[in-house]
């Protein structure tokens, strides 16, 4: 298997050498060498700066891109960590790092955009891979002559060392692999260009590939990291937070002003050939409305974190593209089942009927949201989502269920992070409409960190947040959020009789070697029926991509983690 979608290679100024390693932080220290040439070129192309100046720059490979973003990732650390779950950190990972495989890009709904095909995986850092007949051994053949942006050759040793490093990183979550991969000891080097991974469960194979393709599976330039290892920090975890160049993604960071700007420069040694856009400048603009208006005025090429209402306002603007896709990110109303009132399944079902789905999609998301049925990607092969009951609002039935549970009215606290204004608004809608069905909701705003503590410790009664399955396999979607035994990854702590039935079905499905097979599909469906019916989490709706861009920007990628892959962006001729 080789990649079908390498972006057009373009001439790029080389940026090898020690320079990148120190590229670093500090205020805008452009690295020595080829880059300063690029910087000068860009400067020459766009001096001064009056209002409304459309982003200029030369054509072809030297074209640069300006993106307005809400925030920058605090570190360049690829492992996870930090704001591992914030959009900006995901985006850093998607652009600075690369794994052995990835999902191929296929044509998306909006013209000139692409989405991921979650049913297959193609080579990325690896050129190809094969699976043994028993489905337990995955052998990867690395790309010949592949080097990191620093010029170090990438070999089987780098793959082994990368996994060793992951397993020795305190903030790294190894448990995601528990379904069938034991860690570094299960990897063997066949030769310099070949590595073999051994699984304990063939059914885990697809999810395993999914993890390899996402931030858990990135391969690092071990030569560079080892140079900066110390006795106290043998894997250069601290050094890697602030220094770039050791990832294999399409870009590396060459200059940064914290909280203001980050400059990404194309990786000339990228696995799919040097990206078309030579330089991407991320500029922080705090206000969402301002970001949107900057795209409209042509001051930036793309903007992220745009509110649906602003997207709707710009939908008729000819200069702006508001992309649509089959959305992956969703609004998750989690009912915490370890305490009253949601320890009672009937009360949970009543709440699921009291949510004003349609109003939230129309009013809060301005129509840029779609109904969500279960949490398995509807495009999954051999999975028929139409057989699942659709979420619906029904006050009478909600009241009846509450009465059946022995309640006249129920009061509870719904917690939300102040960082997500759309969800705060959604809370108000839920509160207003659920009152009629017998729920008296108190809304409780928390800071983002406080909220995540509460979510992990399951100390609240009900919480609402944006969620997504980073790996879009049915196995991942069914196993990631409902682990038993008070697991922190199970925000609802769902562990009743229904949960037991759910796991029984899921385990049967997991035992099937191919999770996308016709035998597995009905089992996933059955599991989802139990899940949706028991309602430990209410899937309110899934929401459209939050980016917008100028019409001359092509190759926008809508990915499972909602990050743009700048390596795939091209500039369209007018």
């Amino acid at each position: 298997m080789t990649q079908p979608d390498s972006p057009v290679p373009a001439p790029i100024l080389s940026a090898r050498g020690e320079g990148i390693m120190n590229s670093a932080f500090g205020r805008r220290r452009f690295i020595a060498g080829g880059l300063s040439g690029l910087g000068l070129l860009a400067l020459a192309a766009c001096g001064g700066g009056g209002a409304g100046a459309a982003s200029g720059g030369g054509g072809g490979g030297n074209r640069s891109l300006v993106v307005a973003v809400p925030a920058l990732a605090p570190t360049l650390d690829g492992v996870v960590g930090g704001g591992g779950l914030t959009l900006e950190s995901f985006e850093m990972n998607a652009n600075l790092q690369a794994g052995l495989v990835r999902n191929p890009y296929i044509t998306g709904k909006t013209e000139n955009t692409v989405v991921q095909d979650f049913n297959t995986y193609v080579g990325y850092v690896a050129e190809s891979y094969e699976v043994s007949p028993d489905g337990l051994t995955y052998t990867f053949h690395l790309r010949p002559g592949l080097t990191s942006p620093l010029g170090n050759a990438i070999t089987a040793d780098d793959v082994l060392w990368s996994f060793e490093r992951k397993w020795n990183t305190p903030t790294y979550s190894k448990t995601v692999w528990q379904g069938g991969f034991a860690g570094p000891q299960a990897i063997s080097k066949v030769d310099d260009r070949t590595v073999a991974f051994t699984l304990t469960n063939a059914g885990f194979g697809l999810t395993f590939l999914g993890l390899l393709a996402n931030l858990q599976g990135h391969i690092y330039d071990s030569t560079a990291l080892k140079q900066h290892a110390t006795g106290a920090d043998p894997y250069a975890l601290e050094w890697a937070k602030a220094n770039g160049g050791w990832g294999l993604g399409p870009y590396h960071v060459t200059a940064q002003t914290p909280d203001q700007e980050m400059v990404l420069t194309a990786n000339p040694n990228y696995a799919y050939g040097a990206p078309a856009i030579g330089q991407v400048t991320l500029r922080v603009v705090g206000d969402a409305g301002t970001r949107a208006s900057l795209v409209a005025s042509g001051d930036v090429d793309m903007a992220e974190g745009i509110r649906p209402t602003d997207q709707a306002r710009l939908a008729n603007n000819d200069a702006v593209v508001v992309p649509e896709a089959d959305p992956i990110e969703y609004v998750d109303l989690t009912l915490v089942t370890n305490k009253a009132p949601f320890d009672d399944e009937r009360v949970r079902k009543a709440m699921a009927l009291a949510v004003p789905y349609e109003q939230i999609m129309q009013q809060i998301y301005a129509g840029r949201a779609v109904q969500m049925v279960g949490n398995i990607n509807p495009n999954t092969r051999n999975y028929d989502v139409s057989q699942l009951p659709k979420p619906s609002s029904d006050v009478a039935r909600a009241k009846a269920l509450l009465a059946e549970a022995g309640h006249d009215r129920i009061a509870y606290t719904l917690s939300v992070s102040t960082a997500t204004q759309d969800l705060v608004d959604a809370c108000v809608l839920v509160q207003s409409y659920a009152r009629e069905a017998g729920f008296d909701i108190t809304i409780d705003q928390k800071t983002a960190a406080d909220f995540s503590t509460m979510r992990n410790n399951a100390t609240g009664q009900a919480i609402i947040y944006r969620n997504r399955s980073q790996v879009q396999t049915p196995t991942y979607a069914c196993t990631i959020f409902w682990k038993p035994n008070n697991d922190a990854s199970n925000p609802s702590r769902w562990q009743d009789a229904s949960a037991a039935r759910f796991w029984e079905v899921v385990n049967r499905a997991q035992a099937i070697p191919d999770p996308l097979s016709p035998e597995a599909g009905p089992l996933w469906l059955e599991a989802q029926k139990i899940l949706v019916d028991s309602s430990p989490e209410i899937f309110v709706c899934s929401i459209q991509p939050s980016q917008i861009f100028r019409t001359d920007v092509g190759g926008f990628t809508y990915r499972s983690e909602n990050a743009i892959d700048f390596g795939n962006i091209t500039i369209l001729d007018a």
Partner: protein
Amino acid sequence: MTPFLARHRWWLTRTLVLPLHIAVFASVAFFLVRLVPGDPVMARVDASGGFTQEDYARAAEQMGLSGSVWEQFGRFWSELITFDLGTSPVTGRPVWEEVMTRLPSTIELVTLGLLGSVVLALVLALITVSTRSPRLHAVLRGYGKLAGSVPDFAVAILGLVLFFVVLQVIPAPLGRVDPRMALPDVTGFPLLDSVITGRWDVLEAMVARYVLPLSVLVLVHTPSLWRQLSLGLSEQVTAAPTLFKVASGATRLSVYLSVLRRASASSVVMLGAMFGGLIGGVVVIEELFGFGGVGQFAITSVEQLDFVGLQGFLVVVAGLCLLVFFLVDLVNMILDPRRRPGVRMDG
């Protein structure tokens, strides 16, 4: 005690205790940040796939948050006496560096804003004292009342809508310079650096982008300064020392300066307080214009529960504020000896 020491005790003691104050504050800051709700370790651990107690303990240790609060306090102090504010577990960089890369630009913005306010306040005070037109007075009073009653971010947004969206006369609020322009870095003060390096193009771009935020700062913050000043002036204009000066035939300028000297004490206090408030408070303006700044670092630290970063920020900013308050006190004690504590009138 020698006569010299006795005479200068009022400022000597004040100077000597300054480090002590900063030390006390540092200790308070250490405990204050730990009151911020939320678990910093939990916020950093990737819990999407679950984690064990062991994972948690390892992460806590890596972040320097293992052990009891007192052990952490001990570590904090042993680092602080070597002027080391620790390393942020979030960004992986020394906190001193984090704060110092952001502080100069904030100081520059605040200083320029206050300078503008002082100039405008002086002009307005001069106009109110020297003219008698009731209409002009009414207009100025109206401005004074109105400007103090609107949040600065509301004025800034209004300005952006008017001058950027509608009239299109100012550059986009996308930071200090054009996205393809690099800021020179010598001292960390952006305007100063562009002058030092002779980058007139950068200077020009920056000036264009400073006009609106600075105007907002000046417009919103002048009235309180002006009111304070004109209150002092109206008291001093008819005070005995002024009448004496006028009667003794002093020049107009010397009368004005004398009045100003006696009237400005409380305005200087206010200026100090404004500076302290704005260092952290200008963040809203900085955020709207994409300027970054040290306040943003504090907010991010709170949001991400970066205790080390937050306490470092507090120590540095409080040190700066205390220094400014100290200067304010000295200036005031020079202007008005009655304010010197611990010393009876020497004369």
